């Protein structure tokens, strides 16, 4: 794809460009890495390690529940494990992995050289890593949270959760939320201000749209959880405040309101990027422009808004006023419309496209099957009478695993098979890919479909065991078997990835004949992404004849210069110089981490955090000579 340099003064001098944008060598260079592709890769890999940990925890739980009155795990241990499982999957896997995809792909898709704030990006990753290490490190010291992943007070309060476990949990939230907010700011500014010339908002790939909406949701949702976990819970536990203490004018329900005001959007924060992934895969593999682009984008935005209006459906059983409940039922049902529109658009695309049945497409079909079923049970849960019966039972467990695994994990795996050539430069083995899909699909339904029934026949969630004779034995055993099928499917996937990375056939820059910009550059992309930034004439640039496509010249190659464009129609506005790699983001994150970790023991550690963080920031922003590589 790189233009032949017939007129050297027009086209980029690749050696200089490479020298300008490449990272420092060695360990120091690794620690001060700020390239969005490297950071994105780190996010994805770290998240996958946590996925494995969460999966192991899930298997342990299934083993315990395989038969009634099982003694494989003690009550205390089981509570710790399901708390860790939920926390890991929500905060340490699902959100970060989607952010990783965004960080890696968005700059490529909008045709720029890096994210808007590379150092903030690095900082965000280090905070996320620190948070993960923090909670799992404390586990070795016996400080394991055991109040569930939403830690309702008073159970999680100072009196009923002695020890430090819940404090660790609450502070770990702070780590991951800081990182999530950093990424959100990154992506919003990258998407709004750094799109390639000509890529007006209505020419933006749906994946970028989904990341944009998701980032805005993060910005409005995450502060809420920080308030719930840090201000309410942690301060109540360590400083003796009374936000959720009924004896002193507080209210346990306050915590639930604030937490779910975050907690429900959280689901869509995980799920919107997946929708973007599905659209990308379908557009490429049906070889037609996705049907109903405006409808898709509008329903994405609609999802974003509605998601903030229905948190109360997590609290129907607390007995709130009738009228409010009616409203929240209606709102919860409304979300089905925006989701429905997207499904319809994809179906239309499928009907009129020429489908290439790759592994990625298999995962998309799995997504449609599982997610639609999850949506149906979701509609049931939106109805208050049904919710009062199924709330806090395994029916709900089944529902949100259908929505989250079906709605997020399957598209994610599809996305892996789809972008694998871009990530690694090699094609992934289709046969193994399809095999892993079928095993995962069967295993998933084997595990979670019986749980619907378990909920209906009265099995409550979060029980470490159950008495025999209630007719729960068979379904539980089935689910446990299914869990191991899922495990084997995961193993096949891992093997496939490792094998293909080493020995897969070379993929060109565009193995799929895809439509979006990330396929224009070589795979894996060079540190500067594009020799010349592209100019975007249509919504599917790579499907427009290259004669009609122009490229950008005149950006200096001897320093990290990028092009800033206008928000709506991406007119070039000015050039801007990006900072060099720096160790300071890592050091700043380290300082904050030490302070925050200490803060669960004594308040003054917050001051330590502030001072260390301030020092770090000063080093971070201290003026430096802009990099000038002599040609």
């Amino acid at each position: 794809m790189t233009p032949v340099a017939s007129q050297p003064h027009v086209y980029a001098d690749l050696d200089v460009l490479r020298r300008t944008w490449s990272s420092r060598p060695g360990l120091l260079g690794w620690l001060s890495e700020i390239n969005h592709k490297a950071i994105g890769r780190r996010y994805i890999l770290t998240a996958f390690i946590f996925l494995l940990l969460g999966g192991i925890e899930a298997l342990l739980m299934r083993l315990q529940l395989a038969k009634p009155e099982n003694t494989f795990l003690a009550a205390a241990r089981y509570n710790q494990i399901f708390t860790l499982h939920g926390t890991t999957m929500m905060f340490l896997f699902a959100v970060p992995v989607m952010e990783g995809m965004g960080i890696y792909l968005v700059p490529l898709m909008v045709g720029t050289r890096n994210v808007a704030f590379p150092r903030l990006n690095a900082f965000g990753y280090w905070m996320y890593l620190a948070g993960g290490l923090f909670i799992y490190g404390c586990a070795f010291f016996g400080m394991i949270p055991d109040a569930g992943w939403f830690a309702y007070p008073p159970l999680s309060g100072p009196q009923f959760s002695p020890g430090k476990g819940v404090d660790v949990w609450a502070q770990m939230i702070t780590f991951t939320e800081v990182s999530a907010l950093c990424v959100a700011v990154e992506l919003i500014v990258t998407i709004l201000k750094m799109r390639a010339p000509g890529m007006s908002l209505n020419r933006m790939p749906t994946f970028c749209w989904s990341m944009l909406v998701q980032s805005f949701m993060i910005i409005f949702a995450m502060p809420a959880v920080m308030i719930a976990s840090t201000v309410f819970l942690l301060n109540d536990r360590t400083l003796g405040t009374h936000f959720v203490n009924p004896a002193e004018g507080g209210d346990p329900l306050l915590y639930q309101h604030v937490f779910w005001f975050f907690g429900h959007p959280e689901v869509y924060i995980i799920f919107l990027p997946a929708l973007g992934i599905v659209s990308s895969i379908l557009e490429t593999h049906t070889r037609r422009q996705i049907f109903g682009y405006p409808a898709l984008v509008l329903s994405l935005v609609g999802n974003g808004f509605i998601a903030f209006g229905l948190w109360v459906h997590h609290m129907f059983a607390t007995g709130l006023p009738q009228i409010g409940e009616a409203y929240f039922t209606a709102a919860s049902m409304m979300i089905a419309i925006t989701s429905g529109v997207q499904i319809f658009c994809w179906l239309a695309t499928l009907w009129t496209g020429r489908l290439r049945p790759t592994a990625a497409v298999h995962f998309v079909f799995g997504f449609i099957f599982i997610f639609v079923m999850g949506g149906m049970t979701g509609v049931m849960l939106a109805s208050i009478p049904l919710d009062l019966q199924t709330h806090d039972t395994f029916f709900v467990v089944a529902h949100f695993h259908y929505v989250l695994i079906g709605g997020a994990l399957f598209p994610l795996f599809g996305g892996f098979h789809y972008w694998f050539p871009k990530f690694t430069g090699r094609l992934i083995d289709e046969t193994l890919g399809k095999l892993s899909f079928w095993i995962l699909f069967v295993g998933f339904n084997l595990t979670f479909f019986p749980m619907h029934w378990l909920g209906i026949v009265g099995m409550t969630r979060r029980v470490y065991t159950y008495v025999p004779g209630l007719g729960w034995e068979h379904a539980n055993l089935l689910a446990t078997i299914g869990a191991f099928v899922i495990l084997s499917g995961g193993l096949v996937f891992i093997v496939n990835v490792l094998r293909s990375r080493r020995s897969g056939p070379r993929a060109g820059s565009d193995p799929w004949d895809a439509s979006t910009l990330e396929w224009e550059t070589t795979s894996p992309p060079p540190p500067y992404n594009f020799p010349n930034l592209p100019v975007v004439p249509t919504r599917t640039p790579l499907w427009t004849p290259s004669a009609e496509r122009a490229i950008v010249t005149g950006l200096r190659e001897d320093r990290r210069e990028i092009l800033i464009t206008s928000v709506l129609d991406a007119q070039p506005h000015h050039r801007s110089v990006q900072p060099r790699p720096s160790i300071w983001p890592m050091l700043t994150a380290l300082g904050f981490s030490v302070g925050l970790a200490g803060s669960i023991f004594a308040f003054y550690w917050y001051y330590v955090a502030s001072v260390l963080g301030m020092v770090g920031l000063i080093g971070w922003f201290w003026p430096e000579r802009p990099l000038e590589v002599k040609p």
Partner: protein
Amino acid sequence: MTGRRTLDVSGLPPYDISNQSPLFWGQVLMCLIEGSLLCMLIATYFYLRLGVDVWPAPGVHLPSLTGPTVALIPLLASCVGSYLASEAAKKDSRGGMLLGLGLNLGLAMIFLVLRAIEWNSLNFTWASDAHGSIFWTILFLHSYDILADVLMTAVLLVIVASGHCGPRQRIGVHVDSVLWYFLVGIWIPLYGVIYWAPRLIGGSR
């Protein structure tokens, strides 16, 4: 592939100190985050207030009005300083930036001193009851933000004074002023809530 049509951007300015620069957008988003945080706290304040008949509980002295009200004056005035600084940054006048930053810093200091005095006059802590908790949380968070921004301004002042005032520093000054406007602006509703709400909707004492 040779002779592709090209779009030459070498004519565009190499930097831009205005609301078009990415850093400005980043700062605005940071303010948005902080804003939604504080709005959530205001909501919490009223939620807790609805839970009781008398707010704050009998025996708790209402937070005094005069101190905070007086403190508003230097706070609002300090915005002039940041305004001067950002204008100077756009015009690239080093003297102007020093003046503006200095003015802002001085007034902000006065404000912080007044707040410190106020803290010691309160007869309840965050551990007294729910009112104390939310009151102190709002007060502490805002003071913390102010303090952080004051430190940042001081650092900028040092940097500019030490002779670096390239584009990046000047954008920094501009963006810093944006953050300051936000912190001052958000304090007005917070002030209204934590000092006037107990008097207006505090219930019969």
